[in-house]
């Protein structure tokens, strides 16, 4: 009846099940969805960063051809609650009201002010131009430090301050006294520019109502259908059990679709009022204003060490740009980073403070890595500066301070217990792949010759906390929900398998990987497994996909659920084979009686026997299906060593990456090809932060880099080949030994690139280049260093 599976699936580079539809164009993006009577929604947005709304008149828009309805903020305000912030990080956090559409005041360029509903997208776009709005400009709030001054103009006047929260963390010994005994104290300021996530699929939402029964189906390009369902219910008042949320094919997220957006609530509210299905799809340039941004921090970091290069303590003062409102996890993003500044290093004291600041810009929230890339950047940059100060090779300084492999599990100064790791192995492997010594000697030659094109080498030895998250820890951090994940496994009568997961993939390959996991545990062919996800009706329980959590938490749930199925099937098999459960062996999907191998039943046969239920053990429920929810016992801690060699043209300031080597330890690997792909993509995004990307605002708070022609997402022609390697130190906190890989590349790569640039230019007197390290900035840094030298000489 079935093929026997003998080769393990886990560890194989399986080509993905997801691909067939995607490479042939048989996709189901939200914008592809069309239903009878579908209306198109377009949103008029504030052209100003900050203004009072004096008047909105949508009546002229209603007269336009094809227009069915038009609403001002006030028209829709009734019945619409505030968009949620699920992570109020302190008890006294300032939580402003956040209406899905502005009523009295706009607080960033792009804040919605009116909604037009028309029969097609062209008519809707046209009608927006007929809406009349009068604004009285208010002062923009753009500078994080100035925003905290006593007399600063306020983003939310009713709150009396732009200070959203102050979140302190002091661990280990007292930092001030540790600092006293330091030989060297270095202080630096780093700026994390704002980034636009740029998932390739713009956001879209379709709502189809069943008006008679008050039921609604929301299709959304979201990473979080489960969370969205709960939150939309709260915002709109549609009861949770009347709301079904589907994340169809979702074209990337990178955190930007980990959100409960105003447009989702507005589409639902409009569908409710009109009793008609509606669609909203953002254009790219609209999304640059309306989809949350990432990063946006000023980091003051101070490190204290001995002459021998032993780290003593670290102090970090962070200013974090919240933007105009707190969205789903806006305040928590820098807090996710708070625990990562000490990174892989041993030290005695750690003192961290984050101040969240409101500005009149698009809200910030999660972007790939979310807090951890920022932390890793600051520590890895200052480690290089400390190495220079002490006259040590940057890798030697790291070696002197990192946790040695025999010291795991190790509780780091910030309080996290790293369960496993081997920084020595990853670094040694990376150095070998990179050819570190040869590059160093070439660099020296170029410096001696005074070459126009200098060579620089940058290193980043990172770790991160993944697998979000143990629910008890989330409670302590005041996060609004738990961190568990759910899976269930349905054995179909014909022996095929449905895995139902609460994770919600948007490119990661969960269908393939979960199939591999289930296939191994159940001993059924990979092809016999289907994975259901992203639909609250089909997969009712879940916490969705972000924070490199899906495999570590969701994959673990699949593993356990599959084991439960095997245990239930074992009872049936024992009954049918007239043997004791203890006398049964289970290998490659076959139950057999020890000593008499001809007495056997496959688990797929047992699925049918259970379906027929003609001959089950007494008292047994007629199912071998199983469900498992898992709450992670700890975070997981991927780590690795990334090495970057850059060539910097000192005449033009252009940086070219010459080679990039990374060795990542993401624990046990389910599918090496997928892991490698995740690393490639992550590294590319980290390089993009270092060299290309920035959401630039002018003095009035307008987004200057407002289209894809101005915001520079690198193409294949702008990025190098990456050399990837792995070490495999299993995580001990989950049975898969997996650690997560989605964010690793992005976290590690940015400082490796900037360290390399500064390393190339250090002989010219350059010690810092702000990100993105544009040719102009590099050239200016060289010019400044030159003039400074000339002045002192």
């Amino acid at each position, binding site marked *: 009846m079935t093929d026997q599976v003998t080769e393990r699936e886990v560890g194989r580079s399986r*080509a993905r099940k997801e691909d067939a539809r995607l490479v042939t*164009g048989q996709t189901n993006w939200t914008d592809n969805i069309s239903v009878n009577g579908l209306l198109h929604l377009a949103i008029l947005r504030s052209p100003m960063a900050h203004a009072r709304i004096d008047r909105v008149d949508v009546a002229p828009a209603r007269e336009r051809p094809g227009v069915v309805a038009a609403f001002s903020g006030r028209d829709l305000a009734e019945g619409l609650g505030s968009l949620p912030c699920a992570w109020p990080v302190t008890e006294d956090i300032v939580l402003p009201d956040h209406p899905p559409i502005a009523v009295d005041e706009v607080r960033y360029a792009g804040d919605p002010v009116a909604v037009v509903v028309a029969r097609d997208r062209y008519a809707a776009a046209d009608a927006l131009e007929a809406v009349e709005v009068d604004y009285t400009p208010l002062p923009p709030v753009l500078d994080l430090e100035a925003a905290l001054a006593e007399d600063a103009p306020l983003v939310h006047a009713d709150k009396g301050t732009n200070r959203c929260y102050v979140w302190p963390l002091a661990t280990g010994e007292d930092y001030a006294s540790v600092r006293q005994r330091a030989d060297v104290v270095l202080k630096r300021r780093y700026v994390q520019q704002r980034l636009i996530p740029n998932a390739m699929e713009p956001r879209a939402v379709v709502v189809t109502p069943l008006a008679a029964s008050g039921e609604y189906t929301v299709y959304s390009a979201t990473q979080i259908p489960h969370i969205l369902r709960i939150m939309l219910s709260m915002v709109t008042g549609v009861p949770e059990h009347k709301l079904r949320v589907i994340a169809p094919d979702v074209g990337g997220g990178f955190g930007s679709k980990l959100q409960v957006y105003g447009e989702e609530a507005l589409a639902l509210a409009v569908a409710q009022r009109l009793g008609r299905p509606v669609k909203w799809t953002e254009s790219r340039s609209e999304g640059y204003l309306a989809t949350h941004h990432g990063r946006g921090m000023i980091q003051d970091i101070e490190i204290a060490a001995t002459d021998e290069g032993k780290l003593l303590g670290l102090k970090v003062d962070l200013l974090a740009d919240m933007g105009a409102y707190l969205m789903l996890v806006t305040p928590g993003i820098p807090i996710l980073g708070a625990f990562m500044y000490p990174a892989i290093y041993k030290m005695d004291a750690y003192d961290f403070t984050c101040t969240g600041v409101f500005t009149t810009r698009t809200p910030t929230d999660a972007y790939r890595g979310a807090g951890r890339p920022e932390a890793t950047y600051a520590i890895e940059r200052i480690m290089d500066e400390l190495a220079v100060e002490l006259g040590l090779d940057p890798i030697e300084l790291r070696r002197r301070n990192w946790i040695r492999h025999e010291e795991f599990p190790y509780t780091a100064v910030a309080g996290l217990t790293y369960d496993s790791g081997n920084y020595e192995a990853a670094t040694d492997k990376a150095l070998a792949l990179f050819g570190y010594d040869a590059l160093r000697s070439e660099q020296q030659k170029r410096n001696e010759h005074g070459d126009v094109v200098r060579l620089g080498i940058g290193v980043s030895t990172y770790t991160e906390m993944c697998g979000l998250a143990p629910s008890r820890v989330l409670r302590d951090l005041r996060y609004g929900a738990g961190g568990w994940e759910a899976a269930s496994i349905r054995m179909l009568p014909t022996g095929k398998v449905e895995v139902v997961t609460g994770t919600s993939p948007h490119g990661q390959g969960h269908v393939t990987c979960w199939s591999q996991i289930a296939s191994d545990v159940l001993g059924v062919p990979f092809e016999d497994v289907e994975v259901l996800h992203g639909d609250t009706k089909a997969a009712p329980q879940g916490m969705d996909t972000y924070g490199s959590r899906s495999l570590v938490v969701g994959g673990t749930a699949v593993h356990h659920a599959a084991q439960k199925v095997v245990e239930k099937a074992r009872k049936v098999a024992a009954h049918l084979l007239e043997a004791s459960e203890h006398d049964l062996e289970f290998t490659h999907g076959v139950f057999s009686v020890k000593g008499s191998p001809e007495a056997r039943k496959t688990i797929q046969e047992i699925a049918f026997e259970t379906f027929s239920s003609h001959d089950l053990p007494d008292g047994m429920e007629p199912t071998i299906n199983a469900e498992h929810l898992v709450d992670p016992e700890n975070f997981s801690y991927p780590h690795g060593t990334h090495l970057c060699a850059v060539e910097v043209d000192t005449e033009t300031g252009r940086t070219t990456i010459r080679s990039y080597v990374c060795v990542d330890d993401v624990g046990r690997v389910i599918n090496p090809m997928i892991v*490698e792909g995740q690393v490639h993509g992550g590294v590319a995004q980290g390089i993009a932060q270092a060299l290309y990307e920035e959401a630039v605002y002018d003095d009035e708070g307008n987004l200057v880099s407002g289209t894809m*022609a101005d915001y520079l997402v690198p193409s*294949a022609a702008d990025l190098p080949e990456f050399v990837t390697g792995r070490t495999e130190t299993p995580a001990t906190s989950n049975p898969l030994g997996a650690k997560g890989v989605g964010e690793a590349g992005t976290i590690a790569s940015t400082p490796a690139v900037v360290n390399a640039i500064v390393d190339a230019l250090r002989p010219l007197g350059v010690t810092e280049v702000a990100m993105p390290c544009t040719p102009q900035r590099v050239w200016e840094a060289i010019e400044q260093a030159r003039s400074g030298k000339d002045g002192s000489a």
Partner: protein
Amino acid sequence: MTRISVKVDGTTYEDEVEPRLLLVHYLRDRLGLTGTPVGCDTSNCGACTVDLDGESVKSCSVLAVQADGSEVTTVQGLARDGEWHPLQSAFHERHALQCGYCTPGMIMAARDLLRENPDPTADDVRQALEGNLCRCTGYQNIVRAVLAASGQEVTT
């Protein structure tokens, strides 16, 4: 309204369209050929790349009326008798897609390259795809897939 006749993936369609209708919206909203997605409004991302009379074009930057009398091939028209185009197979085998949103455009742009240069180097591939953005893959596996589809040995 302007009357147009366009052959798309082998089928000829006659339609009345507004002159401003973008070719990509004609494909998606009028013909229901949603395999070709829209990723930007400035012709930078290339997600909407299709073949127009034997050349790759960005269908967001062509009006449907400009395609009057022309032949369009989209990613949905590449397979022959159920057999995938070598690029479709190579993208699958080499894990050259993650979310897959850029994939139709990437494949159509790569197809154009291989027609002009059947034996490209990795650098040729990167240059040829300069107008197609991907946010997931870092491009490395896309380059490998295109080289593999050209019949070249790809070791890593």
